[in-house]
């Protein structure tokens, strides 16, 4: 029998990946969510909606095993080998609600590390909170943050996955980690926030269908001091 075609596989990807719900790994082409407590479904916003569609961010992307931006206590988890540690390497989230906590952050030694420091310095922790989220993504793709929404006890992010330009060297089998500092224009208490959720859509555009496949560098999540470094696992 003739094997299924590439596009056939793509068309059935949603159905197939639906069966993986609960496996704790984000997959492109689907909506997925995870949370420590109960989280709304895909594309949902948190109750008592506060939503920012173009939040200021700082983005660092690397091919290492550890999140390029992380808290010191993440180091232990990221070097461990148990299931929790492995999952932590695929995705993690931290609320940073004070300047002292921000100063604890470990930032990978990359050329743009200074701009991340500037982003931290420019944050007013009296009125703003930083949400650090790290997600694993295939090297030949990148995530674009569409929006973030929050309440006093919950934070949620929504992304789309985009193919990187054809002339950027990457390996189809490699994965990289994208760490984002997202500036939330509200003062949240890290001890109060107990639920996190995120979704990744493969539909290509933050705002509905959009022209599938238009390659570009613009987008809602590259504002602020956002920057992206190439992955470190190129071949």
């Amino acid at each position, binding site marked *: *029998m*003739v094997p299924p075609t590439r596009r056939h596989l793509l068309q059935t990807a949603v159905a197939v990946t639906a069966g993986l719900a609960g496996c704790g790994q984000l997959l492109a082409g689907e909506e997925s969510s995870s949370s420590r407590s109960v989280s709304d479904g895909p594309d949902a916003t948190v109750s008592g909606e506060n939503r920012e569609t173009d939040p200021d961010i700082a983005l660092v992307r690397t091919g290492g095993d550890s999140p390029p931006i992380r808290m010191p206590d993440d180091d232990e988890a990221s070097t461990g080998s148990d299931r929790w540690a492995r999952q932590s390497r695929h995705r993690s989230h931290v609320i940073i609600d004070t300047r002292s906590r921000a100063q604890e952050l470990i930032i990978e030694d990359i050329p743009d590390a200074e701009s991340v420091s500037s982003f931290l310095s420019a944050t007013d922790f009296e009125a703003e909170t930083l949400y650090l989220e790290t997600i694993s993504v295939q090297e030949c793709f990148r995530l674009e943050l569409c929006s973030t929404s929050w309440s006093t006890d919950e934070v949620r992010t929504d992304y*789309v996955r985009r*193919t990187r330009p054809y002339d950027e060297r990457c390996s*189809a089998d490699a994965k990289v980690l994208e760490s984002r500092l997202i500036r939330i224009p509200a003062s949240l208490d890290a001890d109060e926030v107990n639920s996190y959720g995120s979704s990744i859509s493969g539909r290509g555009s933050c705002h509905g269908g959009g022209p599938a*496949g238009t390659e570009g560098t613009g987008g809602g999540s590259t504002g602020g001091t956002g920057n992206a470094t190439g992955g470190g696992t190129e071949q």
Partner: protein
Amino acid sequence: MTDPAPTRRGFLLASGTVALAGCSELDAQSSDTGEEIRLTQLPDVPDPDESEPILVDDIPVEIEDETLTESATRVTDLLGTLPMPLGPEDVPNGHVRRELTEAAEQATGHLDSARSAQTRLSALESLRRARSEARYAAAGWAFVDDDRTATELQAKHQSTVAEAGAFRSEYEYLGTDPVRAVVVHGQLRNTLERVSSGRPPSSYGDRGELLTVAEWGDHAESARAHLEDSRYLYDRFRATLPSDAGSLEATFETAAESLIESLGQRRDELPSEPEEADELADRLRYRLYDDAESGVRNVDDAGGPARAVLAATDALVGFLAYDRLQSRIDDGDRFRVETGEDVRAMRSAALEAIRTGLEESSRPALVRSVLADAAWRVLHADDELARHHSNVRPRGLHDSIRRYVTATVRAKSVPTACEQVVDALE
């Protein structure tokens, strides 16, 4: 027709996979208390990668070698533009490179399928798929090597869509033998309608600029191939007709109306919709009831009188198959299997019904596509069986059995449906 080569079970036995006997079967459920059926007793089905249906579709038009050769040459020409194997220096993005490479491999696979096809029609279909995949790869590479744009390919696609529209507007349902003509025109129009869509390719998500061009290349090539094949079959068919052959459109319309009325009556006579229950007999009844009902809708939506007659043929088979299933249930058949021999018997019955369905139909060409569909059901059932690598409880075989039984009752209903449609056309 030949039986598919039995290879997979033998391979499993040779490789010692049966040593896994006793492991929990993935389809087995705790509520299933039936005795396990030994893997070695199950039918020896072909490996899914190598399986072929015992019967494939055909068209009563002689397709020439030159036409198939031209399509194959088009494929090799397109593939010849690629600097294979593609490397990081050609397309640095590994994902994009893999997409192009896989498309080229798919094209080669379809080319091989065409060479070993059971019928010239299926060879033509495989070559269309090969052309699409080859163009995908070639257009993607041309984006790099020749600044190919999606706009150029969109224009080519639009041009093909316009040509297809002109072809449809001048189309004549010519023929002398209504049965042969309805098969040719129905299949031909099915092919032509694949060109009609002016919609963009159905790519999923953000594919990037290069792969968008590749998708449009595929889309443009697919439309062009469908149009070329439609025109070719139309011309070839016309060439076999006497010069005074007239239009059979009115004949097809009358037949379609008569069949639609008959189907409507049958639908009205159906009992209330059965509930989908756990027992296999109930699931079968539910599925076949649904098939019969949806078959009527397919006739309504067929688009064109020849396609409507073919859709009505399929719908009639659906109703007759439902009746046949109900009779078996009324006679106490619950389609239970307890041994591998039971499964083998069901599979053999399906294959035999397909063979005899063709032999016993007064006009085999009219019902060949219905029987080809039954053959695909058997193939899918075989593929389900091939997933089992250890002993299995009966419930784990339900999907396969459902498909074998459905193929059987549908194939056995074909000769009667054939008679009714022939009567309507004459």
